[in-house]
């Protein structure tokens, strides 16, 4: 089995970007999914799915 090239993105790009985003406020961690719902702008179908 060959090494997956996509590991470059999911190991070397995504984690540092996520860490950086969290530290500069471009991402956030909240306690529960329902709590950020009011603050988050989500697509209408997603809202619909969550509230079903």
């Amino acid at each position, binding site marked *: 089995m060959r090494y997956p*090239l996509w590991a470059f993105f999911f190991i*070397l790009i995504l984690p540092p*970007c996520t860490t950086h985003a969290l*530290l500069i406020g471009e991402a956030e961690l909240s306690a*529960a999914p329902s*709590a950020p719902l009011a603050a988050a*702008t*989500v*697509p*209408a179908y997603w809202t619909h799915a969550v509230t079903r």
Partner: protein
Amino acid sequence: MSSFSPPASEPAATSHRFWSVDSAPARLTQPLSIWAAPAVLALFTGVAALLLLLVNRMPALVEAFPNHDIVFSPYSGTHSVPLRIFVLSFYIAFAAVVGAGALARLRFLGELIFTYVLVCGLFDLVNILAWRSVGLLYSLHVVEILSGLIGFFVFSLKLLDHGSMPARAAVPERRFVRRFAWLRLGVAMAGAIAVSVLVDGLDLPLIRDLRSVSLLGGTGPGVFLFLPALFLLLYVWGTLTAWLGTPRPFTPPLTIVIPAHNEAHVIGRTLAAVEAAARRYAGPVKVLVLDNNSTDGTAGATERALAGLPLIHGRVLDVPTPGKAVALNRGVAETDTDYLIRIDADTQVLPAALSRAMRHFSDPQAGVVGGLPLPPGGGPFDRARLLEVLLKHGYYQIAYGAIDGIVGVPGMFAAYRTEALRAAGGFVQGMNGEDTDVSLRIGEMGYRVIGDPGVHYVSEVPVTYRHLREQRMRWFRSVYHVCARNRTYLDDWRPSLRGKAILPFMLLNSARRAMTVPLFIFGLLHLTLALDATAPLTGQAVLAVLLGAPALMGAFAALANGRIGALLGLPEYVLFRLLRSYLTLESVLSIAFAPRRDA
């Protein structure tokens, strides 16, 4: 002798001094009309405008996608550049124009879109799961930037799959282990995050604007500030390491190998420069000029020049088979010294170049040494090229060297440990980037690959647009050729920093460069269609990053290398970068398409 025919769009190409069999390797490239890239841009403009209008005006789509892009992740914020629409528009335009049959184009487009949708969909799914489990919520900016990076990477990977590429080659055995490269990269990344968080904490309005469109600028992919901070830290690290570890003088016998195809007009000056450098070098210097299928009397001019140069021991060899790598390999075979320097026939080494380059080989693990290719000056592109060189070889190369991550040492001047060169397989024939290929393989054998900005030589810069185009199309195609041939480093399980980080980054960056002009058009579309209230802000930020960021990086590189005068070329450099991006698009369009095969 040559079986190469110039493309139909260049009827008199063979009469140009710069055209050769290496300009467009047979089977791997195809003739490219000068209208192909404009066709891509025109088609892209139409498709992007249509998609933007649909997503912003069709009520059903406006309700489904309040983010004005095709994003399924939860996110915070309401606005960003709709990069998923951008990527899909580019894919459609590129696939429509690329030189292949209709079925091959459809298949290529289908795979591009399918892979992009799949990866973005997985990314969105991961975000949904992360949001539900730990409440992780990205801003829309971050989602869009990462979507753009995915788009660049998919494009390059699919080009590798669908394009006519060199066959995978066996890799040479490793001889040394270069330790702690990954650790050094990790430390530098952590430091870059800290620096960029610190600067971001200042909360300057300009930083906020630039970050929202950071993909579009010459700073490259990634969150704005992080990548420049990373390279700055690595540059400082590399510079300090070089200062602290100055090698001792080392002057063994060496051979200078010069492949020459129709270079009668310049070979005399080149050899005189070698003679001047040999005066500053304590060891014996041999010169091998390989007359490669010349028709202008290069051999005679070389003999006459050598007759007047008492210090270097030179001879001319006739290599009738056309191809620079063919000539170089003949030179390697004829070399009987432990060290070899290849230079182009129009490279003028400066007097200290040999002694400065060779001292690095006092380290028995040094494998390749490169330097700083200075433009001669006076040509239309020279001032821009100087800044490009100072940034690439006087800054980024130092940074990559700090983590043993240098991939390519340009063949205009490259010093090799002869044994390492032979063990790496010599110079590959029939593809672009034979210099990058061999330095990559020598580096992966565990030898040190060194870029010393104090090794100076003067290298010709094209004086016509046609020559510049030919040169850059070769150079920008080489990333794909080198990655295809050395795919083992990317997809086997060895923890190779070059294979797992640097080469993928180069592929991503190459795609970004090919998409820069379309991205510029996309920013203008966003501005002129006035699709949302903040569009003017986005448009201004796009232009600020496209124009301002490269200028800042170029200025820094000029100052770091003590070349204050180079700052005068900044306006030309900014425009040159846009031209370079356009030529990257042309270079990927010139890749021939082959039937699918398993790599």
